[in-house]
């Protein structure tokens, strides 16, 4: 089982409960989310029918800025970005092109990007946000829950903001107060208020 700080699956059907414990563990492992999710509480009742999952993420990775992977050296005629790690090179170029125009962005080799002097301040470039790993993480978490939930449960409500997330799904229309009635108690069980 993944090293989550809190992991509970609740269901009136004991066989189904065990199966869901294993399914959730497999899915989180497959999608490499074990390190990302801190607490998770799942409740499934096929008779209602309802699937509700509530959880907490660990600290979200912060946005990646130019300064994190490149040195910005401003000279008299040009600003040279000395790339240390190529991982974010593609998004960096996209951002620079969009901001300063393709004609102003020159890349003489793999590890160097050159801009004309005076186009941007050193400080501004250093703090320029290139990518946000948290963005795809949110999608991954929701995808994982879609994957874990029983297949026929197509009507769903999902939420993910900061560290908290929930996912409620059913075959039937979800009542308007489902979050207060079903999801909030799950958070309470984990010692958190929604």
């Amino acid at each position, binding site marked *: 089982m993944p090293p989550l700080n809190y992991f509970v699956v609740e269901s009136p*059907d004991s*066989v*189904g409960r065990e199966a869901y414990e294993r*399914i959730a563990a497999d899915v989180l492992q*497959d999608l490499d989310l074990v390190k990302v999710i801190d607490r998770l509480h799942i409740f499934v009742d*096929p008779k209602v029918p309802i699937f509700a999952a509530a959880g907490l993420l660990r600290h979200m990775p912060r946005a990646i800025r130019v300064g994190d992977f490149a040195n910005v050296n401003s000279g008299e005629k040009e600003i040279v970005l000395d790339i240390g790690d190529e991982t974010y090179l593609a998004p960096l170029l996209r951002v620079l092109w969009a901001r300063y125009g393709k004609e102003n962005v020159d890349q003489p080799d793999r590890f160097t990007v050159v801009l004309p002097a005076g186009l941007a301040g050193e400080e501004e470039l250093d703090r320029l946000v290139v990518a946000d790993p948290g963005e795809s993480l949110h999608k991954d978490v929701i995808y994982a829950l879609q*994957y874990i939930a*029983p*297949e*026929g449960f197509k009507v769903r409500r999902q939420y993910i903001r900061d560290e908290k997330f929930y996912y409620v799904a059913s075959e039937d229309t979800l009542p308007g107060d489902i979050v207060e009635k079903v999801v909030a108690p799950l958070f309470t069980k984990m010692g958190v208020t929604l």
Partner: protein
Amino acid sequence: MTTLVPVTFKGGVYRHDEIMDLIDDLGGYIVQKHVMAQDVVLQSFVPRDDIELIREIAKPLAGTVTEAPLVGTEIAVVSPSLEIHHLPHTSCDLAEYLRRSGAKTNMIGLSRGFGKRIANLNDEERDVINEHDLAVYTLGNFEECIRQKFPVLRQGIHVPIVVTGAPDRETLVRIVDPPVEGYVGGVGRIMHRFKRPEELVKLDELVDEVSRTLDARRDALARDPLSVFPPRLMAIIEERIHEISMLTHPTPVTAQMEGLRVKLPYDPYAPAIRSLEVVDGITIGDIADVTPSRMRNYILIRIKPFSETRILV
């Protein structure tokens, strides 16, 4: 009359044609031949008394002969949908294991098999399933869902059904009403390959349930035998209709318990197949129904029983 039993021969490519000739000379039939790199797998029917002889001859070639209860059967593995929830692990592993026991399996993913309220089966799916010798339904984790969905998913299916699901066998027996021919509990929705010992045991259990069900059907068939043994008809068709050798399907002619599926288009080839002489002026049309299959535009041959034709070849 010699009894033909289903066996699998596994060995190297080197001199495997000797085994094929031997099976042929002994009056047996090869239903399926797989060549995978250096290995050959022959699914065949051989006379019971000659198994030892084949073993003896296969020994210097490092070949093994094992019993394969499902040779000569075509089985449908029905999964409620084609979503990641049902595929690939459970359905594919079950199908693959049945294949190892000799069966030809087809996987059928229903377009609307999910959800308690909306689950249903369309007529094409129903007809395709009915063209098989047996259907294995791979159902999910919850007792409640199986109880509600299964009656809909079995509507109009007249071939024997084996149900798998996470509730134990006893629970499945209790909730699946009217009863089906086989149950395997402890196999629900699994998001990983079958690898733990208790999971592998379930696969063996499935093969046992399926072979038990098919044996019962074989016994019933023995009381009123078919006018011709399907693998024999298969050999005749493969020999006379040379287009079959040009098909790229792994099994261009698939043997079933009571007939054959020929993977040639129905309209141009059905008359030729119908008029093919089996022996002494008896044509296939005399002893079998040659009908269009619901699977693509294939041909389905259903062999008539002796009681109907008064012919036994």
